[in-house]
């Protein structure tokens, strides 16, 4: 069974959807695809959709934290949407950290927030241009 990640660019936000139980190569694809996208396009944020994810082990968590750090260094923000209760509880017990990320309940909310991030940044751009 081939589980891939779905990567979508919506304006200047990258939306990555993770499958239910990604193997290690799929998890590392999250990082490589994100970095590729940020290099090729003007991406201001990463939205990680975890609503399908059933297992989040330490490797997955570490990859997310690393990727978020890279995004931050490049001037962007990372939002995590839709984590399932069972995954949240296990992540707490496993004592992992997801690093420089912000969590939101739904993809909807993530898109709202991402819209605000881009608006804020474009306002700043306009201001500085004056």
């Amino acid at each position, binding site marked *: 069974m081939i589980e891939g990640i779905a990567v979508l660019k919506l304006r200047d936000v990258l939306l990555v959807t993770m499958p239910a139980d990604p193997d290690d190569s799929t998890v590392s694809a999250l990082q490589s695809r994100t970095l590729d996208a940020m290099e090729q396009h003007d991406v201001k944020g990463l939205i990680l959709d975890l609503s399908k994810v059933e297992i989040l082990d330490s490797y997955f968590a570490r990859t997310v934290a690393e990727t978020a750090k890279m995004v931050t260094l490049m001037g962007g923000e990372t939002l995590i949407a839709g*984590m399932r209760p069972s995954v*949240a*509880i296990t992540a*707490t017990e496993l004592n992992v950290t997801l690093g420089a990320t912000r*969590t939101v*309940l739904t993809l909807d909310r993530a898109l709202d927030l991402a819209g605000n991030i881009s608006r804020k940044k474009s306002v700043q751009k306009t201001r500085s241009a004056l």
Partner: protein
Amino acid sequence: MAKEGVGTAEAQTDKQGKLRAESDLDMLRILVDSIMEYAIIMLDTKGNMVSWSPAAERLKGYSAAEVVGKHFSIFSLPEDAASGKTDAELKTAVREGRFEDEGWRVRKDGSKFWANVVITALLDTDGTFKGFGMVTRDLSQRKEAEERIKGQAKEILEMATVIVQVWDGIILVPLIGMLDSERTQQLMERLLQRLTETNSPVALIDITGVPTIDTQTAQHLIETIKAVRYIGSEVVLTGVRPAIAQTLVHLGIDLSGATTRSSLTAGLRVAFEIINIHVAHESAQGAAVGK
């Protein structure tokens, strides 16, 4: 019973005694056979079966022919027989006169039943050890009732942790009592479920009903706050009164994952602010699109 001349009277009472003894034995036999609630059987000094009863057959499924001479450990769980538990039971009966136990026993068809078993060491009138008497009582019904009560206790525990939606987007948990591991697990599961189902950005946890904060309860609270934040909601912790605040500081507990307030009212105000921010965002979006 009238006493007569020594010689013949004794001979007579002796004979009568023997007859009585025999008829006593018959009576005992009839009594044992008629008791259906208790399976009464006799074992020899090594624990092999020497007698059987209709109740024993009914309870354990074996006929008399199938068990006579066999060791009583065939009625125990295989792991108990293998570990030497059945031998220990006999030893206890010899040492203390009696052994009593409650546990699983096995029928002929392999099915299990919960039983009360009493093994008594039987001594002759001159003190010779003759064997054992074993009385087994089927407690399946009582076990079922206990399981039912346990289930009800669990339900009561669940009911004790109330989770209420007080507003669109605000879930309130008025905690009463302390938080142990089991209660915390239940709380986390139910709270997170409700938050995701209702899409509520705020979990308002009120600890006014928590008498004191010990390290354990504080740890459990921290876990709960972490888990709520992972799913994308925020925690407003209320009821942090002076005594609690003091304990938290003294124990070095960091509740910075949540917004804390001393009263529920103050907490509600914070909760509404958070909700309104969400509402403001959505309407701003709407306004932007409308342009």
